[in-house]
C-alpha cells in the first residue's frame, strides 16, 4: 500500500483506535486522536517532500499537457463489470489540499481539548469525517470520489446535532439536506458523464480523454458546478452555511469552513472544468456574475452580524465566493487563485473559528456588542485574531493577499469565451468587497478587543493555554509562510493546473495564442 492510501487510511485507523479506548478515559482519547493526526501531519510532510522531488522535473512537460499527471498512483479493480476502480493518486492541487486538511485536523483536535460530553464519539466522528475529506481529495475514480464525498458530509449531522449550540437540530438538518440535494445534482451529472463515455469506466483520467458532445456539456456543467457549489457556498445556495457554522462546535466549524467547503471548489474544478471544458466556456460568465454576488453579499452580510460566528460565516461565504470566482474566470491565473484561496481561506477561517471557540469558552458570549477590551486580558488571542483579520482583508504578507490578487488578476484577464468588458466590470465590482471586508473586520475586532473592559467578569479571564497557543500558532505561521514565500505552494499547483487551461484552449476554434 502506497503513500496515498495511507493518507486516507490513517485517520480511519485513528478513529478505530479512539473507539477502542474506554469512554471513561477522555484524556487518553484526546492523546490518541492527537497522536494519530500528528502522525498524519508528519506523513503529509514526508509525502510533500517526495512529491516535490518527483514532480519538479515534470513542470516543463505540463505546459503542453492536456491530462494531469498523477503521482503515487494506486489502482485496484473493484466493481469490475461497472469499471469502478479503487484509484488514488496525488497531483499538485491534491497535495495542497492534503496539506491544508492535515494542518486543520491537527489543530482542530488541539482546539477540541475541552470537549467533555461524549468525547469518544466526538473524536471518532471527526476522524471519520476527515477520512472522507482525504478520500475525496485523493481519489481519481468518480465513484470512489462520490462515495468519500458523502462520507465527508454526513457525520456533520451528528457532530452539529449532538455537540452544537443554539438551534442545533435545525441547523444540522438544514445543512445535511442542502448538501445532499447538491450531491443529488452531482450524481445526475456523474452518471451522465459515465454513460455518455460508454459506461465502461469511472476513471477520471480516462473519462478526460473522451470528448463529450457540446450539447451534453452544456446541461451537465451547471449541474456539477451548482451541485458542488452548494458545498462551496455558492449564492443563493449558501444559506446552510451561516446556520451550520454558528451552531457547530469549534473543531467542526474549523473543519467545515476550513476544509469541507473546499470540496465544493475542488469538485467544480476537478470534475466540472476538467471534464467539461466546453460547458465551462458556455457558463463561465454566468457563474462569474453569480459568484460576484456571492462575494459582495457575503461581505455586506457580515457587516450586519453581531454574533462572532455568524460574522465569520458570512465572511466565509464571501471568501469562498473568491474560490468559485477564480474557477469561473477560466484562466491559469484564476485557477491558481482559486486553489490558493482554498488554502489560504482554509487556514484563515480555521484560525478564526478556533479563536472564536477559545474566546467563547472564556466569555460565554459570542455577541460582539457585549464584549470589549478583551485584548487586555487575553493578548495572545487578540493578536492572533488581528492576524487572521488582516489576512482576511488581504494584507500583503499573509496568504490571503497572494490568493486574492491572483483571483482578481485572473478575473481581469478574463477569457476568450466571455465578453472582456463584462468580466472586467465584474472583477472591479468584486474587488470592492475588499473595502467592505476591511470595514467589518476592523469594526468587529476593535469592538471586541479594544477600548475599556466592558464587563467586570472579563477582568479575571485568562489568556491562551499551551494547547491553544500551539494550535493558533501553527495556523498563524502557516498563513505567514504562504504569504511570504508563496512560490512554495504555487510551484506545487501550477503544473497541475496547466492541463486544465490547455484543455480549455484545445476545445477547438476558439483557442487564442498567448492567452494568459
Amino acid at each position: 500500500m502506497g503513500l496515498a492510501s495511507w493518507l486516507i487510511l490513517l485517520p480511519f485507523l485513528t478513529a478505530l483506535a479512539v473507539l477502542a479506548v474506554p469512554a471513561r478515559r477522555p484524556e487518553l482519547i484526546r492523546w490518541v486522536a492527537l497522536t494519530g493526526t500528528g502522525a498524519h501531519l508528519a506523513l503529509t510532510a514526508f509525502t510533500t517532500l517526495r512529491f516535490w522531488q518527483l514532480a519538479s522535473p515534470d513542470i516543463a512537460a505540463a505546459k503542453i499537457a492536456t491530462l494531469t499527471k498523477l503521482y503515487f498512483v494506486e489502482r485496484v479493480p473493484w466493481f469490475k463489470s461497472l469499471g469502478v476502480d479503487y484509484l488514488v493518486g496525488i497531483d499538485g492541487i491534491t497535495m495542497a489540499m492534503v496539506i491544508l486538511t492535515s494542518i486543520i485536523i491537527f489543530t482542530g483536535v488541539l482546539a477540541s481539548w475541552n470537549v467533555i460530553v461524549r468525547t469518544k464519539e466526538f473524536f471518532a466522528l471527526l476522524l471519520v469525517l476527515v477520512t472522507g475529506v482525504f478520500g475525496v481529495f485523493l481519489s481519481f475514480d468518480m465513484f470512489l470520489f462520490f462515495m468519500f464525498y458523502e462520507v465527508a458530509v454526513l457525520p456533520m449531522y451528528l457532530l452539529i446535532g449532538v455537540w452544537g449550540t443554539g438551534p442545533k437540530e435545525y441547523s444540522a438538518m438544514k445543512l445535511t439536506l442542502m448538501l445532499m440535494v447538491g450531491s443529488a445534482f452531482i450524481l445526475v451529472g456523474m452518471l451522465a458523464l459515465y454513460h455518455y463515455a460508454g459506461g465502461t469506466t469511472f476513471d477520471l483520467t480516462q473519462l478526460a480523454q473522451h470528448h463529450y458532445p457540446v450539447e451534453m456539456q452544456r446541461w451537465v456543467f451547471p449541474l456539477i458546478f451548482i451541485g458542488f457549489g452548494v458545498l462551496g457556498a455558492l449564492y443563493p445556495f449558501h444559506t446552510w452555511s451561516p446556520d451550520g457554522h454558528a451552531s457547530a462546535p469549534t473543531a467542526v466549524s474549523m473543519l467545515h469552513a476550513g476544509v469541507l467547503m473546499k470540496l465544493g471548489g475542488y469538485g467544480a474544478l476537478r470534475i466540472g472544468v476538467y471534464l467539461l471544458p466546453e460547458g465551462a466556456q458556455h457558463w463561465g460568465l454566468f457563474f462569474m456574475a453569480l459568484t460576484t454576488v456571492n462575494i459582495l453579499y457575503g461581505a455586506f452580510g457580515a457587516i450586519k452580524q453581531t454574533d462572532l460566528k455568524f460574522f465569520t460565516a458570512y465572511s466565509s461565504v464571501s471568501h469562498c465566493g473568491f474560490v468559485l470566482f477564480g474557477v469561473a474566470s477560466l484562466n491559469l491565473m484564476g485557477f491558481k487563485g482559486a486553489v490558493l484561496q482554498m488554502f489560504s481561506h482554509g487556514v484563515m477561517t480555521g484560525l478564526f473559528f478556533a479563536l472564536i471557540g477559545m474566546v467563547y469558552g472564556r466569555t460565554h458570549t459570542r455577541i460582539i456588542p457585549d464584549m470589549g477590551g478583551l485584548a487586555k486580558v487575553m493578548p495572545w488571542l487578540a493578536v492572533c485574531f488581528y492576524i487572521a483579520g488582516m489576512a482576511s482583508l488581504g494584507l500583503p504578507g499573509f496568504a490571503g493577499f497572494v490568493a486574492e490578487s491572483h483571483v482578481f488578476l485572473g478575473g481581469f484577464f478574463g477569457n476568450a469565451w466571455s465578453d472582456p468588458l463584462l468580466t472586467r466590470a465584474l472583477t472591479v465590482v468584486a474587488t470592492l468587497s475588499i473595502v467592505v471586508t476591511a470595514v467589518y473586520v476592523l469594526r468587529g475586532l476593535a469592538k471586541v478587543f479594544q477600548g475599556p473592559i466592558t464587563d467586570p467578569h472579563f477582568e479575571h479571564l485568562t489568556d491562551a493555554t499551551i494547547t491553544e497557543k500551539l494550535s493558533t500558532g501553527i495556523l498563524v505561521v502557516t498563513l505567514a509562510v504562504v504569504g511570504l514565500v508563496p512560490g512554495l505552494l504555487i510551484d506545487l499547483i501550477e503544473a497541475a493546473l496547466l492541463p486544465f487551461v490547455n484543455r480549455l484552449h484545445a476545445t477547438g476554434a476558439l483557442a487564442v495564442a498567448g492567452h494568459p
Partner: protein
Amino acid sequence: MLMLPELIVVATGFLLLVLDLFLTEKQRDLLVPLALAGVAVAAGALVLTPDTGVLLGGRFAMDALAWWFKLTFLLAAFLTIALTSGVLESAAPEARKLHSPGEFLTILLFNLTGMLLLASTRDLITLYVALELATIPLFLLAAWRRDALGGEAGLKYMVIGALASALLLYGFGTLYGLTGTMRLDAMPALLHADRTTLFAGALVVAGVGFKLTLVPFHMWAPEVYQGAPPPVTAWLSVASKAAGLAVLMLVGFRVFRPFLHDASFAIALLATATMTVGNLVAIVQRNILRFMAFSAISQAGYLLLGFLAGGSVGAAAMVFYLLVYAMTNLSVFAVIILHNQQTGSTQITDYRGLSQLNPLLALAMMFGLFGLAGIPPLSGFVGKFLLFSVAAQAGYHWLVGVAAVNSTVSLYYYLRIVRQMYIESPAQGAVPLKPGAMLGAALLVTTAASMLLGVVPTVYEAVRSSAAVWLQALGQ
C-alpha cells in the same frame, strides 16, 4: 432435485403441523429451532445444487435468476423466524406473545413455499397458484394478534388482496385470449403491440402493484404494516415485496419484453409516483411501523428503475438491490421488533436516547437506516447507484434527478429517527433493551451483510453474470 428446496420447506411445514399436536406448551419452544433447521437445510440444498433445468413439462424451471430469488426468500425466512423467536417462545411476556407458535410457523413456511415456487413458474396457471400461496397465508399472519388493529389489518389486506388477484386474473385471461397459450415464453412471439396487449399489461402491473406497493396500489400497506405483529411486518416488507418483484420480472422480461422499451415512460412515471408519494408521506409518520410502510413503498419506486434499460444490467441491479434491501430492512426491523417486544411501543419518539442506553443497537439501527437512505459505504448506496445508473443509461436523466432528490427526502426522515436515538436524551426510567441470542445474531448477520455487500464486489458480480446468462437463455 430441482425442486428440492421447495420440498424440504413443505415437509418441514407439515412436520411442524403434526408435531404441534403432540407437544406441551413448554416443548413447543423446540419448534423454532426446527423451523430454522428446515429453512437452513433448504438453503443448503439450494446452494449445493445450483442446477438449471425444467420439470413438470416445462411448467417449473430453475434458472440463474430464480436461484437468487430463492436465496433471498430463504434468507429472509430464516432471519424472520430468528427475529420472531422472542415472541413465539413460551416465556415471552403475555401481552406481546404470539399464540400457537406451531401454526404460525407452519403458515409462514407454506407462504415461503409459495414464494419459492413463484420464482420458478413458467405458465399462467402455476404462476397464479403460486402467487396465491404466496399471498393468502399473509392474510392470516397479518391478523395473528386478535385485536382491533390486527383484525383491521387482516381484513383490509384480504379485501384488497382479492381485488388485486381479480385484476391479475383478468390480465392473465386477456393474455390467454390473445395468444391461446399458457406458456409465458411462447407469448412474446404471439403478442402484437395493440391496445388489448397494453390493457393486459396494465392489469398485470396493477395486480402485482398491490404486492409490490406501487403507488397508486399501495393503500393497504400502512394499516397492514401497523396492525400486523412486527415480525410479520418485517416478513411482509421483505419477502412479499421480493415475490412481487419476481412476478413482475417474470412477466416483464418473459412476456412483455418486446414492449418494455415502449412502456419505459409509463414505468418512469410509475416509479416517480411511487417514490415521491412514499417519501413525502413517510415524513409525517409518528408510528415506526407506518413509517417503515412508506419507506418500503418508496424503495419499490427505486426498484422499478431497473426495468428502464431492459438489459441484463437492469435485471442485475434489481436483484442485487432486492438482496441489499432485504438485509438492510431486516436489520432495522430487528431493532424495531426488539424494541416493541420489550417496551410495547411503536412510537418513533420512544426511541429517544437509545444510543446512550444501547450504543450498539443504536449504531446498527443507524447503519440500517443510512443503508435504506443509500449512504456510502453501505450497500444501500451501491444498490441505488446501480439502479440510478440504469435510468441514466436509458437516457432518463431527469428521473435520476427525481430519484436522487427523493433519496435526500428519505434521508430527512431517516435522520429523524437518528436524531431521536442520538441527540435526544433517554426518557426517565428507560432501561436498556436486552436482545436475545437469536435476535442479536440475526441483527449482526444482517448488519454485516448490508455493509459488506457494498464493499466486497463478489456478490454483485455473481448476480451480474447470472443475469447475463439468464437473459441469454431468454433469447435476447
